[in-house]
């Protein structure tokens, strides 16, 4: 297996969810409608890199993450993991690769089985993948994983149950269970949004250390402030598309797409003297069944010109940052 290529490459990925027509719809032979949840997106992730997919609810960021892990099937496009095309790989062939890609979810209160001790929770992935060797070796791996997520000494935590842990500790246990197999890719879906502010930074710093250790992390978040501080790169999604992508600092300090600009302008700052001049967009994003023609953002765009109703812009180099791209005919 090569390890010099990109860890993850996603090319023109499309994911549709059919809308049930119901009995009358079927009988009347109404055309099948689909939610175009992910509508042609491309990105890549390197080892030791954290890419944040940001956007509002319904923009397709979670569907993207699930599709990358083949938890949801794409309609078209290509997903390559460590050089292997996994887009249509049958489950049996996918299984050995699954060990190398893991996911943590938003809510550590839901993602942990309340009946399993911390030790059983962390050993479960080893058992599922027939990894970890003997019972003693598994126990050793579990202990090691706890140390890596800073729940120390491990003896203090191994016998505990989720209800005996705080929210931050639960999320650390979930991370321990996801790294015990030694994955190369971690998908983190809103990993701290359910946690109290005072413990969020600790969990994010932990993910940052894992990243520095070579893990590639795809973080799904709606929180631009968090992305700004912890991501290497940020991809901003709107209605199933990446509308802007680039180095985190470049996106935050020099946004090129009108949607990114508006989004950044409404993020509340913690310093009251930095009263932002919010550029509040009217209404909410339309649903992904009726995506506007041309640029999908044009109906809400404050600077749209007539061409925007016709041209569906592609991601093109924009701004000053290396690899900074925006999908706007006015950017650049």
């Amino acid at each position, binding site marked *: 297996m090569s390890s010099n290529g990109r860890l993850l490459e996603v090319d023109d990925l499309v994911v549709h969810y059919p809308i049930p027509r119901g009995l009358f719809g079927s009988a009347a032979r109404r055309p099948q409608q689909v939610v175009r949840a992910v509508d042609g997106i491309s990105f890549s992730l390197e080892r030791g890199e954290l890419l944040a997919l940001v956007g*509002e*609810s319904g923009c397709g960021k979670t569907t993207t993450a699930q599709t990358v892990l083949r938890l949801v099937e794409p309609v078209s496009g290509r997903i390559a993991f460590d050089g292997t095309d996994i887009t249509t790989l049958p489950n049996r062939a996918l299984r050995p690769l699954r060990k190398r890609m893991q996911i943590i979810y938003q809510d550590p209160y839901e993602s942990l089985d309340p009946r399993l001790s911390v030790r059983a929770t962390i050993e479960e992935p080893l058992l599922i993948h027939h990894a970890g060797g003997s019972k003693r070796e598994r126990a050793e791996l579990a202990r090691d994983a706890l140390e890596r997520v800073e729940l120390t000494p491990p003896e203090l935590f191994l016998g505990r149950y989720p209800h005996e842990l*705080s*929210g*931050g500790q639960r999320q650390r246990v979930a991370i321990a269970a996801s790294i015990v197999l030694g994955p190369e890719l971690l998908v983190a879906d809103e990993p701290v949004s359910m946690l*109290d*502010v*005072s*413990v*969020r*930074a*600790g*969990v*994010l*710093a932990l993910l*940052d250390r894992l990243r520095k250790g070579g893990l590639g992390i795809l973080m799904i978040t*709606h*929180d*631009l*402030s*968090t992305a*700004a*501080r*912890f991501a290497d790169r940020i991809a901003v999604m709107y209605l199933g598309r990446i509308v802007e992508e680039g180095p985190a600092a470049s996106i*935050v*300090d020099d946004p090129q797409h009108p949607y990114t600009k*508006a*989004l*950044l302008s*409404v*993020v*509340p*700052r*913690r*310093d*009251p*003297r*930095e*009263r*932002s001049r*919010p550029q*509040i*967009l009217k209404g*909410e994003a339309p649903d992904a069944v009726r995506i506007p023609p041309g640029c999908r953002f044009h109906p809400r765009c404050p600077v749209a010109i007539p061409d925007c109703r016709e041209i569906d812009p592609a991601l093109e180099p924009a701004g000053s940052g290396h690899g900074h791209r925006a999908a706007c005919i006015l950017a650049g």
Partner: protein
Amino acid sequence: MSSLLEVEELNVWFDLPHGGTLHAVQGVSFTLDRGERLGLVGESGCGKSTTVLGLLGLLPPSAELSGRVLLDGVDILAGGEESVRPHRWVDLAIVFQGAMNALNPVQTVQAQIAEALEVHGLASGRAARARVGELLESVGIPRERGERYPHEFSGGMRQRAAIAMALACNPSVLVADEPTTALDVMVQAQILELLDALCRDFGLALLLVTHDLPVVAQLCDRSAVMYAGEIVEHGPVDALFHDPRHPYTRLLFAATPDLHANGAPVSIPGAPPRLDRPLVGCPFHERCDRAFGRCTLERPLLRGLGGERAAACHLNDVPAGVV
């Protein structure tokens, strides 16, 4: 001159199912003036929501409450829950986090706001419908949309409808408990802009309960920071950020990520103390980076520091540079 709303020494205890009592709110006092915006901010379990449920008389029967809630100088809590009821919605209205829970799913938005007007004897029939139209427009919902059901509204529109309903009886105080927490950042901005306009244009006083410091920093005039059931610091939002006088306030700001700040946020080690046993010393001392001997022994009281400021920290008694 008395304030519009004065909360004095509010205490709330819950009986625990397995015996014992949890002292959820511990002597909370604050004031709110007409048109003023106060942010009650803190993390989960700090007692901020219990405080507002208490002052609105909305606590479950397992709760015990003491303290005074003065509205225009009259104690509305004197007769317990019964004596608050006539003031709820009429003087003090509330908007909760999940607007879906505040709206009846089987009634059109217009019908339920009209019903609220009729129940309170403010308007009926055609007059009620006209008033509903005005209310909806004041929160940015086109009149004719009132004929729809809550599920036909987006999250942001539902929250607007809940605000319209809260405004039905012309309250002087709007209590908003995490009003934007479930919303996207753009919709949050729309709702915050609306709340801002309501305070400015109608002199509405806002008590905003939230865990989100930046929202308070941007929307409120003053803030009270709660920790372990009590207010640990209180003052104008600018002073709290630039010159915090309680370590928890300082550390909470430092833990909050910011779009343009240098450096990564830093978490606060440890966890809040349990509130089902008596607290010894300062409730924050175990997590505090500046605790000293006295903090483990003696509980600091919330003390005025001049200029509308107050903090409950022994460090404020110590001349600078001594500890």
